[in-house]
């Protein structure tokens, strides 16, 4: 039963990919705010601080970390174009090769490999305690103009970053899949990407038709779920036992 849910999703996506139609996306304010964030940094001459959090790639946090890379790439490319400085706080040792690879690739593709500053990729040891100390410390010392944090978080420390960015006048953007962090990023951060938003961001930014179509597949899947919910709820209200379909 559970596995068939994945297979159905796979088939929907494959069918849509074979149709070769590029879907139209509604606007996501947080993604459209990236030029504003970068522009603000350029205007004020302050750096943009970026972090992916402390989710290790070998755990389930890999999903949001991989998704955060798309936002990193976008932020970095726009910053290179407009001339803003990006300071990247790395807080899990396995992010080092990913972020370094992407940074070098981005500078090279923009034809400015000489502008790479290795000292702007700061490794701070790992774990949430050092992330708290180092992030607010670096934001304060470098007078950050914007703070971007798509990645994993335990949930308790997220208000610190948003509120600190707010008090030093930096604009902030966060994207998390951890449901416990959502109330904070919705209220405290200037722009937020909730759960599926951050996972889909990479596809919306991408020009690859396969990537964009998978998001379309996800929407079809969502409509199917809405159907299942309506039918299942009404059936169980009428006294039919539908829970056997959802046994674990």
């Amino acid at each position: 039963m559970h596995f068939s849910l994945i297979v159905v999703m796979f088939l929907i996506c494959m069918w849509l990919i074979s149709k070769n139609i590029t879907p139209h996306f509604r606007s996501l304010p947080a993604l459209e705010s990236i030029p504003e964030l970068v522009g603000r940094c350029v205007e004020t001459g302050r750096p943009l601080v970026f972090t992916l959090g402390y989710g290790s790639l070998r755990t389930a946090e890999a999903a949001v970390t991989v998704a955060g890379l798309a936002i990193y790439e976008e932020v970095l490319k726009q910053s290179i174009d407009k001339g803003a400085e990006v300071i990247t706080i790395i807080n899990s040792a396995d992010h080092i090769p990913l972020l370094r690879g992407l940074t070098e690739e981005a500078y090279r593709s923009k034809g400015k490999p000489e502008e790479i500053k290795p000292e702007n990729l700061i490794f701070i040891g790992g774990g949430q305690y050092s992330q708290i100390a180092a992030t607010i410390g670096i934001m304060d010392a470098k007078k950050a103009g914007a703070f971007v944090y798509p990645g994993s978080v335990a949930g308790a420390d997220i208000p610190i970053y948003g509120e600190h960015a707010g008090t030093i006048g930096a604009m902030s953007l966060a994207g998390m899949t951890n449901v416990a962090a959502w109330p904070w990023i919705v209220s405290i951060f200037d722009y937020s990407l909730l759960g599926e938003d951050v996972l889909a961001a990479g596809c919306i930014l991408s020009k690859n038709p396969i990537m964009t179509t998978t998001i379309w597949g996800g929407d079809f899947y969502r409509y199917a779920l809405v159907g299942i919910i309506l039918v299942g709820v009404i059936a169980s209200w009428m006294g039919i036992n539908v829970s056997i379909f959802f046994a674990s």
Partner: protein
Amino acid sequence: MISTDIAIWIGALWVIFAYSFIIRDNPLFKFCEATMIGTTAGVFTVIAFDNIKKLALLPLIEKQAYINIIPLIIGILLLAQVSRRQFYLSRLPIAIMVGGGIGTAMSRTITSNIVIQLRSIMVPLPKTPFEILNIIILIVGLLGTLLIFTYTRERKGPFGWVTKIGEYLMMAAMGSTFGLLITMRVTYVITRLQIIVFDLLGLG
């Protein structure tokens, strides 16, 4: 009675040093920051060495588990990041980690995030009007919020109305979590201040 226990003094000093950041950034907080970064790097490295020892080296030596040679060798490729030309080699261990991480996330998510949630709402119609109202609020909130995350459709017409209701209920739900967590987190600060008031100064 002021305590003479050095452990309590250290705990209290950390509180004073770190909380000085409330007024402004200063060398005392910078000291905390540097201590934390350095110690964390040390602690995580020690845990890493312990993991290699327990998972790979000890079984290899004691139980002749020769398969453990493979990860020990592939892992060395991660050190290829030092060189720009051999950088691509470090992608192999990363690929295995990403595959494992995404595979774990993907397989569990169907059961825990979708099927169990579906099961929890398929209940018989309750008896009292208040409970019926509650379950209607539940279904409306669920469908409205679920449809907010649709990407390929503009929020217009009846669809827009449903997502609008979902958005309102979503904000109320998040507000309640906000309030709940404010209450919970005050205890973090209270326990820290108890170190100074109770343990160090012996008041209260």
